[in-house]
Every structure is written in C-alpha cells, then in structure tokens.
C-alpha cells in the first residue's frame, strides 16, 4: 500500500443545452429586470488602449449550417500582451479592458460579434513569444464539453510563423483554420465543427 494522492475528479461536463441564454445572457433571452446587463457584452471603453477591431464569425456544423443557439466566449491579452487576471504577474493589464467577452450566436444568421482590441504578444512557457491570438470557448446544444480553440490574425504572418502552438500542428494546411482574414477593421473567424475545414480544437 502507498499513501492516497487524495485528488478529486473534475465534475463531468454536460451540454449547455438549448436554453443556455437563460442563464448566461438572460437579457438577450428576453428575461429582463433580473440583471442590469448581460455579462461580457462590453469589453472596451473610450480609454482602452490599442487598435479597435471587430471579430465576427459563425460556428458551422457538419451539414454546413451555422449554429443559431451557441454561446461563444473569448479571452485575450490587452494591447501590451498582459491579461486582466490575478494570475498575471508580469505587470498590470490595461484597467480599461476586461479581456473577456461573451456573445450568443444570432438566432437569425448564427453570427457572433465582438468589439475588442488587437491583443499584444504574450510569452510561451519557454520564453518564446506567441503570436497575437484570442482564446475561444464554444458551448451549445449537442456539444458535450466546451470546445477550446484560438484565433490568430492573418496580418501577423511573421509572428504566426514563429508561434509555438501553430508550429505544433502536424497537418500544415490545418493552420489556416485558426487564422482569421482581415477586411478593414473586421476579422472573420468561422469555426467549423466537422469536415475538411474542421477547426483545430485544443486539449489545453
């Protein structure tokens, strides 16, 4: 016999279901008067540092249809590459930037939209710099455990070329699934759950 490590098991995930909006974005679901606003709808204010951008996209199922009942959350560094989190010990992030956004996909066309800023570069564990990126987390009816992925920026080709996570992708044509093209100030990031264009999802 040896000592028991005594670790607990993580609570198993269950689908967010079709009514995730009631709990996470009740005002969007028409349940008004309980919370003033839905959390995560505003990430920036007038004083937020950095380049203003719009990130827009869809979550597309294996039949090519956009999910109209998904919930998308993003988490990102500020313009200097710092996270607005107590676990960020490298410095103090921009107090005018939350770094976290939440958006339900539209019931009409399945589009999600975030008004945010372009993040700076943050370090990988070994000190190499990661390319600017936004962490995505997607939940919906039919998704048993939330899906993690990342969005990178098409106009950061040089940084992307030296990014440690992108370098780990064995099938190089799949790197493109994580890189959002830019048009004006809008980046479009479509997330494909299945098929030839299936997004690289992360176990991280």
């Amino acid at each position, binding site marked *: 016999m040896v000592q028991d490590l005594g670790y607990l098991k993580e609570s198993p995930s269950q689908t967010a279901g079709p009514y995730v909006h009631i709990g996470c974005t009740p005002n969007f679901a028409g349940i008004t008067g309980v919370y003033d606003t839905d959390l995560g709808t505003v990430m920036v204010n007038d004083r937020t540092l950095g380049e203003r951008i719009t990130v827009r996209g869809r979550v597309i199922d294996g039949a090519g249809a956009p999910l109209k009942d998904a919930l998308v959350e993003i988490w990102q560094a500020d313009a200097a590459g710092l996270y607005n989190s107590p676990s960020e010990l490298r410095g103090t992030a921009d107090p005018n930037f939350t770094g976290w956004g939440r958006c339900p996909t539209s019931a009409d066309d399945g589009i999600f939209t975030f008004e945010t800023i372009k993040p700076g570069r943050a370090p990988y564990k070994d*000190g190499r710099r990661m390319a600017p990126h936004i962490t995505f987390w997607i939940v919906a009816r039919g998704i048993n455990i939330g899906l993690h992925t990342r969005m990178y920026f098409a106009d950061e080709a040089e940084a992307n070329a030296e990014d440690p996570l992108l370098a780990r992708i064995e099938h190089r044509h799949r790197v493109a699934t994580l890189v959002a093209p830019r048009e004006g100030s809008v980046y479009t990031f479509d997330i494909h759950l299945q098929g030839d264009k299936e997004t690289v999802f992360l176990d*991280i």
Partner: protein
Amino acid sequence: MSDFSNQKPETGAFFQRDRAWHAPALTPGYKTSVLRSPQKALLSLDGTISEITGPVFGHSILGELDNDLIHNFAKPGESAIGERIIVHGRVLDERGQPVRGALLEFWQANAGGRYRHKKETYLAPLDPNFGGCGRAITGEDGSYRFRTVKPGPYPWPNGVNDWRPAHIHFSIFGHGFAQRLITQMYFEGDPMIWKCPIVTTIPDRNAIEQLIAPLDWANTIPMDARAYKFDIVLRGRRSTLFENRMEGN
C-alpha cells in the same frame, strides 16, 4: 473584476483533463451531437498564460436577489410556484482546495418543467413569477448557496419518448480559462436520471453520480425549504516551484 491581494495568486498550469471521465464529443444517442462533434483529434498542449489566466468577477456585479430564483423575477409580494429548495455546496479543485471568488450562473425550468425561452414548445404553463436564472460568487471557503423551486422534468425531441430528469444547469468560472465548465445537477432518487440520453453521454457511472445532489436533511429549514448539497470540482493546478520562469518573470 477584482483581485484577492492578501494571497499570492497561483500561476501553475492545470492538470490535464481526464477525457475518459467526460462524455466523448460524439454520442449518437444524443442526436444533436452527431453533426456538432469534432471528428479530428484535439491538439494537446500544456497550458500557457492564455489558459492559466482568466476573468475574475467581483461581488459588485451581484444584485440582492441574484441567488433567489423564487423572488428575482416575481412581482412584489409574490413568489414562484413549486417546491421550495436551497441548493448549496462548495466549488473545489482537484486538489480538494476551495475555489474562492468563482462565479456560478445557474438556469432551470420552472416547477412544471417549462423554460422561459422563445424556442421552448412544451405545453406546460409558464409561471409569471419565475424567470429561471440566478448567480452567486463563492466565498473564501468556496461555498455558494441559492434558493429556488425544484424544476420539473420535461419531454424533449430526441427519441420519440425522451424526458429530461429534473436538473439545474451550472456555468462555472474558476481562476483560469482552462477551468471553464458547464454542467448539470440532478436530484437524489430520481429514476429518470438513468433513462436520459444526455446524462448517459457520460460513460462512467461514478462520474454521473458526481452530478447527483443528495438531499441535505441537516440543512433543511423546518416549515420552509429542503436543502440539496452539490459540490463542484474544477481542474487542479500544478505548483510552479520548480518550473522554468517565463521571460519577464
């Protein structure tokens, strides 16, 4: 957003997720998963600062009735219809340590099994005094509590005659984005738990039982409300004592 400046925050990467403990992505008995499940292998990576960090929410976001679903949507002087219950417990990590300052959001059907949602089609009536959402932030010991009515079971279009057991949905933020979790709580003694195609996406019976809240007689308030205890476990994290420091640290 707030911090807890009296204790140094932890910065270790999170324990690898035990994917065999969770439901796989593809679970054909739950039909919607068929076209919504990634088919390629996930890219596995030790957490970086992007996942080790995460948003933290201060108590200032909370309203007085946020953890009282019996009253937070009700007209003044009225209350939601149903069996009055208190749900309470602790948010821990896999090391057994309390996760303080964790935001929990919960949502549920009313006592008749009907959600207040425009896509909901079940013929059970809405309760004009029940919205179905609430939230709480854990204390220093990881504890939370809220008051609600026990949700009803309801039928759903999957198989011809599939029903969801009574359940409450939970969304939980830990301290790092890698801990982000959505799950559901079930009630002790409900025979419908084992018939549900969503519950049984989870392959391990012990894992399912981790989601079943026991009746907590000791915390039941006489002549008022029964209590159910539901502890939630988030991923643990490594100590950083012997790990290489990131550049700039």
